[in-house]
């Protein structure tokens, strides 16, 4: 494990005054832990000497649960993994089953999936932005972000019937086409949204307090980030160009022209910038998908009962938090034999110790916010 040099920096007063370390229990009920995450922090005054993560408070046994359902029945439960990015989870599972079945998803369905995925990514990043801002004390960003997220949730409700956990895709395609007028409302939103991002950035990016709180805090080097298997904006904030949408294209992502924002220093500020810029790229992708929407079928040829061939498949997508992977094992029956979720939040949370060592207790809060963890996904 890479050790931060700062961790060795102990206050010189300690030797003279014989001070003691404090062990502070951050969580599981703590406003900044974004759920029921618990961190045992060892402190020298306010400086973090080390920390240990305790997770599992929200473990619901989703993987076991899925083994007792048929392949289709298992879809809605994976929405509950990352409950602020439900559509993406659904895409991950459904994509894995399709990969195992060798089903070709129609092009139009793929495009619709891209649009909904990117909308969900924006929604997820908005929740992150609001809560991260609130952690560092900027209140208004939360409400502005939630306001825009509501617009996306309304779009979901009109399209999929539910706002938060819509059970978006069936195996083989998408359920419905856009309702009448949906595309116009979506385009309207896409017009307004970049201006809203400018507002958030006006409140945060240039703000000297925000910069002082985030620049140089929670640094993780590219080498450490790769070694710790971090993914998503947390990895890209350190300057590693790895985005599943580009690296292992799925669902027609190769058709779209977009950039992957990269950071340089791997600190909280870079991760913040990565995500904010990613939202702009998502808008770009949705616009291209709406413009180039092909005609055609919505669902591939999938029977009412699915019996994939015995074997395994590992399918990864770029979820809002990072690389979301589904490792599914089939024994040829109509039920999954084993479903394993590689959840980005779980893996990203490993990096927190490296990031927090040597920083102050207030920085722990900033780092947790910048990792964008959702405990439903961490604990599964």
């Amino acid at each position, binding site marked *: 494990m890479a050790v931060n040099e700062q961790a060795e920096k102990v206050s010189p007063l300690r030797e003279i005054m014989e001070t003691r370390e*404090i062990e502070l229990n951050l969580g599981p009920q703590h406003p*900044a832990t974004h759920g029921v995450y618990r961190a045992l922090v060892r402190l020298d005054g306010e400086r973090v000497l080390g920390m240990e993560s305790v997770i599992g408070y929200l473990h619901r046994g989703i993987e076991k649960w899925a083994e007792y359902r048929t392949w289709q029945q298992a879809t809605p439960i994976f929405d509950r993994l990352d409950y602020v990015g439900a559509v993406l989870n659904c895409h991950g599972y459904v994509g894995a089953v399709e990969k195992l079945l060798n089903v070709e998803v129609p092009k139009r369905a793929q495009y619709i999936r891209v649009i909904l995925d990117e909308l969900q990514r924006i929604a997820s990043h908005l929740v992150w932005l609001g809560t991260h801002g609130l952690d560092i*004390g900027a209140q*208004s960003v939360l409400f502005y972000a939630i306001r825009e997220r509501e617009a996306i949730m309304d779009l979901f409700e009109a399209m999929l019937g539910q706002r938060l956990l819509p059970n978006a895709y069936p195996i083989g395609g998408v359920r419905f086409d856009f309702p009448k007028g949906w595309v116009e409302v979506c385009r309207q939103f896409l017009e307004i949204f970049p201006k809203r991002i400018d507002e958030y950035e006006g409140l945060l990016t240039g703000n000297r307090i925000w910069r002082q*709180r985030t620049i140089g805090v929670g640094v993780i080097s590219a080498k450490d980030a790769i070694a710790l298997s971090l993914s998503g904006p947390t990895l890209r904030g350190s300057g590693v160009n790895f985005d599943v949408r580009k690296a292992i294209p799925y669902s027609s992502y190769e058709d779209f022209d977009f950039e992957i924002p990269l950071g340089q220093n791997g600190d909280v500020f870079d991760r913040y910038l990565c995500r904010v810029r990613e939202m702009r790229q998502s808008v770009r992708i949705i616009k291209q998908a709406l413009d180039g929407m092909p005609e055609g079928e919505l669902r591939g040829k999938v029977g009412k009962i699915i019996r994939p061939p015995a074997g395994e498949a590992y399918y990864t997508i770029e979820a809002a938090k990072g690389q979301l992977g589904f490792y599914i094992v089939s024994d040829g029956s109509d039920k999954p034999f084993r479903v394993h979720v590689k959840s980005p939040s779980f893996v990203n949370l490993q990096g927190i110790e490296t990031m927090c060592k040597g920083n102050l207790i207030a*920085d722990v809060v900033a780092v947790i916010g910048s990792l964008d963890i959702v405990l439903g996904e961490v604990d599964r």
Partner: protein
Amino acid sequence: MDFATIMQYAGWPLIKIVILLIPVFTVVAYMVWFERRLLAFFQSRLGPNRVGPLGLIQPIADGLKLFLKEDLVPMNSRPFLFKIAPIFAFFPAFVGFAIVSWALPWVTPSGKVHPFVVADVDLGILFVLALSSLSIFGIILAGWSSGSKYPLFGSLRSASQMLAYEVPMTLSVVAVVLLAGSFRLSDIVAAQEKLGWYYLFPGILAFGVYLVSAVAESNRVPFDLPEGESEIIGFHTEYSGMRFAWYFVGEYANVTLISVLGTTMFLGGYDIPFVNDAALYAAHPELTSVLGVCAFAAKAALFAVFFIWIRATWPRYRYDQLLKIGWIVLLPIALANLVLVALLKLWLLR
């Protein structure tokens, strides 16, 4: 002792105190409502709007709810200190209002002068500064006696924060005292009127320093570290019910007091802008007093709006950065400003 003496030394002050406390309590309670409402407006929301018209009964409902809540005393705490700690946070903020001069004195037809102030102390400002230092005890005691780590962190942060910001604040006040030549608040207002300028302009640096330290003193964003609700929950983590309410009310009383003092020192207090007060006072003394109080309230409300505005906008500083700003930025500025103001006083405003 005859009745008149008793009235002079005990009766009138008590009546004045009661007359003062009722509006001050109301203002403090509605300060909460005002803050929540305005904050919501900044954030594109409506804020409390269900209890009564425009949510105006909300403070009463909140107070009632807190009053009816169970008073919890944690097992690890020092019960006696834990119980009396809120008093230290609550009283200094209210006592400070005693020296504030609210309007020009009211002269009765019989020729008796009634100043609009409970106690027109010579060293009024020093008295307030001393009191505001006292309120730190409430926080330290709360943190220490709670027997829990989060309140301890909160109170330790608060103590060093108070230390760091008390000094620049005092220095900025000294600049005003230097300009006015008196510690008495009514004298400061009178001096500003005489000068024809509010001290905002000659003392712009002092005003800036006062503003920043006032925000820090009243533990508000961006310096709300003792509470810092998303990192350490604050020195009042373990408090509930009425004892929590005392801290809450004390905090808002503090904000009100700081706004009021800032108004007096930098915005001319009860001086009505763009009007020759002395001439108006000679013609209509009652009208001038009423208008003066209104002007005072309006100016103080400006302060309050500013506090809420920055709360809506800015993130929170970190502990070490806050101390750095206090000692490295504000203190030198306040000292330099003192020299500047002294020179100004010597050459220009003699």
